[in-house]
């Protein structure tokens, strides 16, 4: 047997060990990324084989915590893919406005930038006051940052450019104040957001939602898990509810595809059909 095939066995054993010991299920994550991270951790932890990491993981909870952090890299931006926000403004907001109140779920929100971006958009569209946003992730460290809403000031230039390209109608500087090296978002933007821990693999439906955004999370899953999570979203949406995925993710090949119509394929905006 070749070394890489042995390594494959080791990785399977390791993922099983994590699931059985801690309940975190990475068994259906896209394997190539997972393997890359495990190899990096192997290097950092001074183990010579992946199997050597298994007893450490089982008996040393702090080692496991390090592991989870490595598996959940919360990379994100405000108004990432500005054209998507333009599309939301033009095509989703009018639909949301037909509801007396609006419930929105932002799944895999990482450090919160996207949720705040949406808050700004809703404010500018006079929809914020009747909206409730649930922003969830399974990474508590990321959620703590999200709750504070304080980001490095070095981001300001990108965020501002993105905001303008996204069709912002005000000046981005009105939404934060700069202090030392940090930008603190206005408290008014936090009022209607609830940040909470939710694991898309092991936790269940979150409630009846009008709009679900889950961007750049599904790419980290394999086809089987993608399908399961998409079904979870479908079950959580009201009829006529809207789903927004990452610009490289699609409903096209999933089993729930037929339950949705396309609002905009490039922006990956879909609407659950009424039955």
């Amino acid at each position, binding site marked *: 047997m*070749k070394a*890489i095939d042995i390594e*494959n066995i080791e990785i399977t054993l390791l993922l099983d060990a994590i699931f059985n010991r801690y309940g975190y299920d990475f068994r259906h994550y*896209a*394997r*190539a*990324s997972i*393997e*890359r991270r495990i190899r990096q951790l192997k290097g950092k932890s001074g183990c010579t084989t992946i199997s050597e990491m298994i007893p450490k993981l089982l008996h040393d909870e702090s080692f496991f915590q390090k592991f989870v952090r490595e598996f959940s*890299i919360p*990379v994100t931006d405000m108004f990432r893919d500005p054209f998507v926000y333009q599309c939301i403004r033009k095509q989703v907001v009018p639909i949301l406005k037909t509801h007396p109140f609006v419930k929105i779920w932002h799944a895999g929100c990482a450090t919160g930038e996207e949720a705040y971006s949406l808050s700004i958009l809703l404010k500018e569209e006079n929809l914020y006051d009747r909206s409730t946003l649930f922003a969830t992730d399974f990474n508590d460290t990321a959620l703590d940052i999200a709750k504070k809403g304080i980001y490095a000031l070095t981001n300001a230039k990108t965020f501002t450019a993105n905001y303008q390209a996204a069709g912002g109608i005000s000046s981005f500087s009105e939404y934060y104040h700069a202090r030392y090296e940090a930008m603190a978002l206005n408290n008014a933007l936090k009022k209607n957001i609830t940040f909470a821990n939710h694991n898309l693999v092991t936790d269940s439906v979150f409630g009846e939602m009008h709009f679900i955004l889950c961007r*750049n999370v*599904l*790419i*980290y899953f*394999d*086809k089987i898990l*993608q399908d399961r999570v998409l079904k979870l979203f479908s079950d959580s949406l009201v009829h006529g509810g809207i789903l927004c995925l990452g610009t*490289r*993710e*699609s409903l096209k*090949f999933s089993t729930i595809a037929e339950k949705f119509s396309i609002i905009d394929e490039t922006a990956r905006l879909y609407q659950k059909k009424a039955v």
Partner: protein
Amino acid sequence: MHSKQGHDMKKNGYKAIVMGVSAGGLAALSRLFSDLPEGFALPLIVVQHVHPTADRQIFDYFNSNCPLTVKEVEDKEKILAGYVYFAPPDYHLLVERDKTFSLSIDPRVTYSRPAIDVLFESAAYVWSSRLIGILLTGASSDGSRGMQLIKAHGGLTIAQDPATAEYPVMPQSAIDANAADKILSLDGIGKFLKTLSKTGYPDRQTKIQGQADFISDVET
């Protein structure tokens, strides 16, 4: 194993080519694509750093000059022969064992996303000695580590001759890292790919009866 010769060749030969290119890539790629022989049977997977902003048009342009279909990768897409695949801008591109693609927005590697190293590394683990890595013009050191890994897994690595590259830094750093089996001009790479397709894509472990081992013979 006692399978037929022809079948054996297909089973044992190269399965895929990964290619990394940065500054100066447009000219180099259009040149290489137009050199590809009709019916080229290996998927060609490309990470290009600097994406021209009007990127849709670039695919039309490539397609009008290339016998294979040139496209940007969709997440979980199946890898097929007859295609040239490009990593989408701002996403890392990885190869899965089941010969599908995955994307990621993990942080930049060697200042790049997509990073050549990320593609090359994942491909090396999937295809090991059945993989060819090609590193072209660029002003970055991305790709050197990936080339080393491909080499370590028994695959074949080719660096564009820095003397003929618009930006020599990238192929040169792979050469300095001792990660290039061959150093070829664009012309040489084109010729190599043609011969490869004519002889049935034999890898270095496959000796074809009555045929010279052209891989070690290609002129530099």
